């Protein structure tokens, strides 16, 4: 989490001194079957939620994951956390392969990988007291009990900024921001190495978002945490991340250090997303070209061939229909900034002036999909 992205809080340059690789995801793929049948259910189609994602997360960094609703980012998070079995691919954590481990063998890794969920109302059981919710990790892993557990739960409550005396209250007695703090305390209980934050602030008021983000930031410094931070709000991601990955229809389109990616977006999709971010300065906002994409996000049941973005891309050519481009450095980008595009955007090009070289009329009406609703966190 870096307010000033080039340098972390200890003053080290993150990009030259990134930690060891903590998590490696290779070819992660998740298909959800759609079944139908009179007596015996047959698989008739599948939702391609995540389709061949490669990722590396280094110890101590924050990797932001952005994309529109339904692009598979939450599914990817759950694959990493081992909540869904993977269709294909591997996940390895701290050098051990944890792909599709049975529950008992997964248990030790659960202590190292924790999740913070999107919905502060849905993620806390309304029938249980806060103390017992935060104490769950201790209970499940048999770490501490009785007075010791209570003491540690109250310490955690203090760490996340809750009044430890509210130990015996129910979630309904807390506000949304406080509930999210409860979720953070629960994730923190076992001192994990990696915390996957699945849109942790998108359900909160903007004023509360900053508080929770600052809390996560402080905790990262204090406990040396690694974050995977999922959001659809590009400004939040920019604020918190060291590196950012952009997802579209289950695939990673572009990944790179936060300033490279925001400063020189190479993928037309990234350009479109960024052009929709509202800018506080009205003069700049007026002069800026909004890139209006055509049509809707295609159905993940029948994803487009080749590059999944080709039906909406202003730079699409015949090859985009045929082949999925590899995720590689383009132009003179450093090898930390990778783009999956046959026709990446050079510096200074205005892609709202581009015209596609293929027929995109089959992809829906010529109604501009307004991305601003998505990127501002609506």
């Amino acid at each position, binding site marked *: 989490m870096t307010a000033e992205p080039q340098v972390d809080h200890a003053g080290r340059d993150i990009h030259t001194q990134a930690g060891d690789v903590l998590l490696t995801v290779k070819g992660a793929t998740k298909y959800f079957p759609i079944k139908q049948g009179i007596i015996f259910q047959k698989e008739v189609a599948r939702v391609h939620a995540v389709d061949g994602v490669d990722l590396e997360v280094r110890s101590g960094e924050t990797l932001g994951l952005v994309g529109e609703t339904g692009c598979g980012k939450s599914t990817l998070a759950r694959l990493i956390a081992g*909540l869904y079995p993977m269709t294909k691919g591997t996940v390895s954590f701290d050098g051990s392969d944890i792909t599709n481990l049975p529950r008992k063998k997964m248990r030790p890794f659960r*202590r190292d990988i924790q999740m913070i969920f999107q919905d502060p109302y849905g993620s*806390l059981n309304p*029938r249980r007291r806060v103390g017992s919710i935060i104490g*769950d990790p201790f209970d499940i892993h048999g770490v501490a009990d009785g007075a010791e557990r209570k003491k540690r739960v109250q310490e955690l409550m203090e760490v996340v900024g809750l009044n430890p005396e509210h130990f*015996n209250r129910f979630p309904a007695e807390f506000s949304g921001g406080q509930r999210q703090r409860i979720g953070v305390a629960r994730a923190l209980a076992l001192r994990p190495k990696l915390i996957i934050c699945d849109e942790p602030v998108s359900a909160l008021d903007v004023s509360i978002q900053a508080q929770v983000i600052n809390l996560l930031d402080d905790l990262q410094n204090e406990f040396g945490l690694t974050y995977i931070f999922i959001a659809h709000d590009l400004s939040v991601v920019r604020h918190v991340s060291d590196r950012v990955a952009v997802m579209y229809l289950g695939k990673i389109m572009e990944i790179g250090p936060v300033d490279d990616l925001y400063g020189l977006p190479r993928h037309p999709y990234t350009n479109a997303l960024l052009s929709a971010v509202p800018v506080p300065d009205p003069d700049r906002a007026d002069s800026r070209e909004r890139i209006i994409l055509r049509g809707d996000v295609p159905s993940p049941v029948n994803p487009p061939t080749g590059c999944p973005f080709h039906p909406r891309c202003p730079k699409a050519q015949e090859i985009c229909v045929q082949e999925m481009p590899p995720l590689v450095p383009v132009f003179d980008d450093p090898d930390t900034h990778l783009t999956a595009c046959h026709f990446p955007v050079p510096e200074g090009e205005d892609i709202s002036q581009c015209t596609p070289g293929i027929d995109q009329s089959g992809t829906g009406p010529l109604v501009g999909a307004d991305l601003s609703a998505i990127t501002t966190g609506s």
Partner: protein
Amino acid sequence: MTLIAADEVAEQKGGGSGPDISAPAAIQGRTPLQLAWARLRKDKVSMACLVVIVLLILVAIFATQLTDLIGHGPNEQYRDKGLAPNGLPVSPSGFFWLGGDDVGRDVLSRIIHGTRISLLVGVVATAMAVIIGVVVGTTAGYFGGRVDTLLSRTMDVFLSFPFLLFAISLVSVFSPSVKISIFVIAFFTWANVGRIVRGQVLSIREKEYVEAARSLGAGDFRIMAVDVLPNLVAPIIVYSTLLIPTAIVFEATLSFLGLGVPIPTPTWGNMIAESQGTYQQAWWFLVFPSLALFITTLAFNLLGDGLRDALDPRAARVLARK
């Protein structure tokens, strides 16, 4: 008073934008059941029903002592004083407060003992049905997939039985008794509970807190016990309260058809059946056992309604909103 105030504060906070928790209030949060009880206490009808039910339970427990006080056992026949000279039952009087029956027994004393059977059958059969229904319904809803298909179809089959006809067949094969009545009633009601529980579990299963528990490494058994079951408490309480009168009527119906608890054990159902020959002359013989049955079922039904409102205040508010 403070009780009500705290209640409202808690409800506002449930809405999302309540006052800060630093507001002076009890540190100990009250459980949802405590809140429901506070709401129920304000409902006069429910409290009256609760009193009636507690009285009925006391009558059932102390039936023998009560009839000793009256001085007529449930099966004692008074051939001289208990029957009119023409052989018809005697009307209510200082001797038989609620009249006599067709063989000279005290209707009041028999009703008191009938309470015992009715409540016993009602409560035990309901408890059995709820336990089976919750176990099957939770398993089906939680695990889903093939387990769900198998269990749901089984429940569908049970619900497709012509249950009263099959129930009397079962009773006739195993010869009538209190035990067989309880078993048969539970046998034909558990699937209703199971279906409702399954539906609830299906929605609870998708909640993020279940996913959170799984991400912490909790096993299925723990998730069901700690995260799923507590959320089923409210519907189970309401449904049980509404099932008890159904079971009581079921037992009375079996007894009425001559296939319930065998005579001479007094039950409301077989008293009503016995009254069929003479009730046109002796209305009390029909009316008082019927009244006992009616008051009991009504009390449980009204309490069930009140409990539903108290346990799910949001539903009540939706109705009040217009």
